C-alpha cells in the first residue's frame, strides 16, 4: 500500500514538534502495555470458539445455535476453559468419544460426552493433535492472502487515491450482491456490507446465507463467501480488485476475524475500544478479543478500519477533536503489538464539525492533516458528515462536496462516500450515483491540490493542529496518571471514570463479562502458537 509520501510531501505541511509526537506515542504505549499484559493472560469463549472454527468446526443446530458454542459451553461446564478448549476436546477425540469434531459437538450438546483434563503424555498428545488440526485453517488463511496478492497483481489497484468506499445494506445477501456489483461498476473500490443492528451484541455468529436483517445484513461465513465470489466476478469485469469490508467489533471479534480470513475479506472494522464505550461490552472481554482478532487480521493481510467517527457523533467535534487523536494512537499501539503493519492500519476520522461554526472547514483541514502527518504510512479512512446532515439534501450534497475536498487536499487513503440522504432514507440508487459523481468531480478537479496546499507557518491550520495534538498529549497523561487503587490498570481506570467520551465503563461490568477466563499455567492455544510462527506460504504485500 502506498502512502501520503506519494503526494509529493517535500516538507511537512504541519510543523509539529517531533518531541511532542514521540511523547504522545510513548504515553500511548504506557497506557496500553498493562492492558496487553491482561490480554495475554486471559482468554474468552469467543477466542476459544475461533480456534475451533480454525480447526474446521462449523454449522449450527436446528435452532441456529452454532456447534462451536455448544462444544465450548460443554467443555466449560465440565472441566473449565482455564487450559483452553482444545486440549480436552482433542483428548476426547483421541479417546474415541467421537470420530470428528462435528460429531463430538453434537454429542456434547446432548450431554453424552465426558471431558477431562489429560495429564502428562496424554496432554502433550492432545495438544499435538490440536495443533495439527488447526494448521489447515491457518494455511487456508495464508493461501487466501496469497490469492488476494495475485488478484491485485492481475486486476490492479484503484487508479486514484483515495480509494472509494461504499456501503450496501439491504438485509438480504441476495439483494446486496447486485447492488454491490452495480456500485463497483459505477466506481466503488471497496464495498462494505453493513451488519444487522445489534449483531455486535450477539454472543454467537449466525449461520448460513441470510435474507432478513434489521437495517443491515448479518455477518455470516456463507454471506462472506457469496459476496467475495460476486466481487471477484466484478473485479474481472471492471479491471481492478474490488475489496470487501465487514465488521469484527462486538462480542464475536475473534470468530468474525477468523471467518473473514477464511473467506478472504480485505478489510474489517476493528476498533480497540468501540465495543466498550458505545456498546457497553466488558472492557477485559474487548481487549482480549481485540488482540486475538487483530493477530488473525495481521496474518490474513486484512486492513483494519478503526471507529473514531463514533467519538465525534456523540461529542462535539471541536471540543472532542483530541479524543480522536488519542484513540488513533491507542489503536495504533494495540494494532502494532498484535502484529499489524503500518499499511494495515486504516485509522479513522470524520468530517463532523458543525457547518454553523466559523472556520469549520479550516478546522477539518487541520484535523485531517494532523492525522495524515502523525500516521504517514497508514491508509487513513476519512468518513463523511452524518451528525449535521439535516434532511436538507441540497445542503447535504454541498457538505459532502466539502468533505470530499478535504479528503483530496490532505491525501486521505480510504474515502467513505457520503450520501445526501444520510439520516433520511436508505440511499436510493440515484443517491448513490449522485454521491459518486460528487466524489469524481472533486477528485478530478482538485485531486492534485495536495501538492499545492501548504498551510502557512504558524497560521490558523498549523496552530489548530498543534493545539489538538497537545490536548491529546494532556489527555494521555491524564489516563496514564489515573491510578486508583494500587495495582489498578490506568487505562481501565480511565475508561471506568468516563475519561473517554461520556461513558463510564467499569472493568468488572458490561456485556460478555461471563465469557472471560483467566488462563491457568499450561494454557494451550494452538492458533496462538501458529500465529507466532511464520506464514506457511503466500506473498509479502509490500
Amino acid at each position, binding site marked *: 500500500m502506498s502512502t501520503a509520501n506519494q503526494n509529493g510531501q517535500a516538507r511537512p505541511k504541519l510543523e509539529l514538534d517531533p518531541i511532542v509526537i514521540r511523547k504522545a506515542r510513548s504515553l500511548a504505549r504506557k497506557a496500553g502495555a498493562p492492558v496487553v499484559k491482561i490480554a495475554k493472560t486471559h482468554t474468552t469463549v469467543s477466542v476459544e470458539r475461533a480456534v475451533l472454527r480454525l480447526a474446521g468446526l462449523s454449522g449450527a443446530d436446528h435452532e441456529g445455535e452454532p456447534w462451536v458454542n455448544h462444544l465450548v459451553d460443554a467443555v466449560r461446564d465440565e472441566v473449565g476453559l482455564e487450559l483452553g478448549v482444545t486440549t480436552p476436546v482433542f483428548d476426547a477425540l483421541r479417546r474415541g468419544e467421537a470420530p470428528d469434531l462435528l460429531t463430538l459437538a453434537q454429542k456434547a450438546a446432548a450431554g453424552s460426552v465426558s471431558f477431562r483434563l489429560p495429564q502428562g503424555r496424554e496432554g502433550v498428545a492432545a495438544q499435538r493433535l490440536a495443533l495439527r488440526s488447526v494448521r489447515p485453517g491457518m494455511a487456508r488463511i495464508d493461501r487466501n492472502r496469497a490469492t488476494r496478492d495475485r488478484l491485485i497483481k492481475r486486476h490492479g489497484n484503484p487508479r486514484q487515491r483515495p480509494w472509494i468506499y461504499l456501503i450496501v445494506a439491504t438485509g438480504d445477501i441476495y439483494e446486496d450482491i447486485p447492488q454491490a456489483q*452495480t456500485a463497483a*461498476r*459505477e466506481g466503488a473500490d471497496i464495498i462494505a456490507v453493513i451488519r444487522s*443492528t*445489534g449483531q455486535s*451484541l450477539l454472543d454467537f455468529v449466525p449461520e448460513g446465507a441470510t435474507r432478513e436483517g*434489521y437495517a443491515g445484513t448479518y455477518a455470516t461465513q456463507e454471506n462472506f463467501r457469496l459476496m467475495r465470489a460476486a466481487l471477484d466476478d466484478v473485479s474481472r469485469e471492471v479491471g481492478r480488485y474490488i475489496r470487501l469490508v465487514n465488521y469484527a467489533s462486538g462480542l464475536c471479534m475473534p470468530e468474525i476475524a477468523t471467518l473473514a480470513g477464511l473467506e478472504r475479506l480485505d478489510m474489517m472494522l476493528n476498533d480497540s475500544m468501540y465495543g466498550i*464505550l*458505545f*456498546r*457497553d461490552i466488558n472492557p477485559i472481554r474487548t481487549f482480549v478479543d481485540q488482540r486475538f482478532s487483530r493477530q488473525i487480521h495481521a496474518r490474513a493481510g486484512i486492513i483494519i478500519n478503526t471507529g473514531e467517527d*463514533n467519538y465525534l*457523533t*456523540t461529542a462535539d467535534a471541536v471540543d472532542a477533536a483530541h479524543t480522536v487523536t488519542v484513540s488513533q494512537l491507542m489503536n495504533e499501539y494495540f494494532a502494532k503489538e498484535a502484529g499489524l503493519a503500518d499499511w494495515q492500519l486504516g485509522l479513522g476520522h470524520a468530517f463532523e464539525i458543525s457547518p454553523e461554526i466559523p472556520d469549520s472547514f479550516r478546522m477539518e483541514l487541520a484535523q485531517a492533516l494532523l492525522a495524515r502527518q502523525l500516521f504517514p504510512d497508514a491508509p487513513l479512512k476519512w468518513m463523511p458528515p*452524518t451528525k449535521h446532515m*439535516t*434532511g*436538507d439534501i441540497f445542503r447535504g450534497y454541498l457538505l459532502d462536496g466539502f468533505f470530499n475536498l478535504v479528503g483530496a487536499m490532505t491525501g486521505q487513503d480510504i474515502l467513505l462516500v457520503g450520501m445526501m440522504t*444520510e*439520516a*433520511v432514507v436508505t440511499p*436510493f*440508487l*440515484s443517491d448513490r*450515483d449522485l454521491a459518486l459523481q460528487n466524489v469524481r468531480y472533486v477528485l478530478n478537479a482538485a485531486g492534485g491540490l495536495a501538492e499545492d496546499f501548504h498551510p502557512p507557518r504558524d497560521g490558523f491550520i498549523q496552530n489548530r493542529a498543534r493545539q489538538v495534538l497537545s490536548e491529546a498529549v494532556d489527555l494521555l497523561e491524564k489516563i496514564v496518571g489515573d491510578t486508583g487503587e494500587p495495582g489498578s490498570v490506568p487505562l481501565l481506570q480511565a475508561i471506568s471514570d468516563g475519561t473517554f*467520551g*461520556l*461513558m463510564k465503563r467499569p472493568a468488572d461490568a458490561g*456485556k460478555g463479562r461471563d465469557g472471560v477466563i483467566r488462563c491457568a499455567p499450561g494454557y494451550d492455544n494452538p492458533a496462538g502458537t501458529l500465529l507466532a510462527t511464520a506464514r506457511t506460504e503466500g506473498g509479502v504485500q509490500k
Partner: protein
Amino acid sequence: MSTRDTGSQKAASEPSSPTAPPAKDAPQILPDIIRPYGDTTGDGMVQVSFTLPVPHDKRAEGAALQLAAKMGVAPALLVHAKAMGSGFTFFIVYGSVSHLVDLRDVVVIEREFALLSAKEANAAIKKRLHRKLVVVGACIGNDAHTVGIDAILNIKGFAGEKGLEYYSEIKVVNCGAQVLVPELVARARAEKADAVLVSQVVTQKDRHIHNTTQMSAAFREAYPAGKVPLLIVGGPRFEQGSEERLGVDRIFGKGTTPGEVASYLVHAISQAGSTTKEHP
C-alpha cells in the same frame, strides 16, 4: 429534526372552488386554497426527481413525462436525464402542478407529547427534578433479544439518534437480557428508578403479554400506590392502546427512536404531580 413529520396532510381531492376567490373585505386573511410557489403566486411550480428502471433513450424520456403528467405536473419540463448503470435512468422534472391544496382539509395529528432535542430534554429534566432521571432497562423472561432495548439505551442509538445513555441528565442502568422480574424490581428499587423500560420481542404463545402483566403486577406489589416508577414496554407486537390492560404507562412500537422515548419521559415526569398517576 427538520424531517420529522408532526402532521399529515390530506390532499384535497375535490376542492370546493377551483378558483379561489380572493377575500374581498379582508385582504389580510390568507386564502384557503393554495398552489405551490415557484417565483410567481399561483404558478404551481414544483421540481421532482426520480429513477425509472429502463435504459436511457427517447422512450425513457417519454415515460418520465408520462409519469409527470400522471402526478399532475403539466406542462412538464424534462430538464435532466442520465443513465445510471445499464438499466436505469435518473430524471429531474420541473413543471406546474395542477393540484390545489385546501388548507381547511389539513388534519394535524398531535402526539400527546412534544418531541424534544437531547439538549431540551436535559434542560427540562434538570429544571423539573434537580437531579438525574434514572432509567432501568431490561429484556425480561426468556427473551434474549436485546436489539430493541439496546437501540434505545446504548449511546450508539438508532436511526441516527443517540441512545438515552447520551443524555447527560439521564442515568441509564441496562440490566441486559433474560432478567427475572423480581431481579428487575429489586434493581429498580435499589437505583430509585423513575422509569423502567422493558423490551419484549418474542411473542410465541403471547409470552410478551404474559411477561408484561407479570412485571407490572410485581411492581404494583412492591411499591406503595402512586410511587410505582413509569412502566414502559417496547416491542414490535404490542397492540397500541392496550396500556391499561397490561398495567403499563406507555407502549412503544416498531421504529421508535431514543428521542421519542426521552421526550415521553420528560412529558410524563412533568405530568406527574399535577395529575396523580393511577394504577388500577
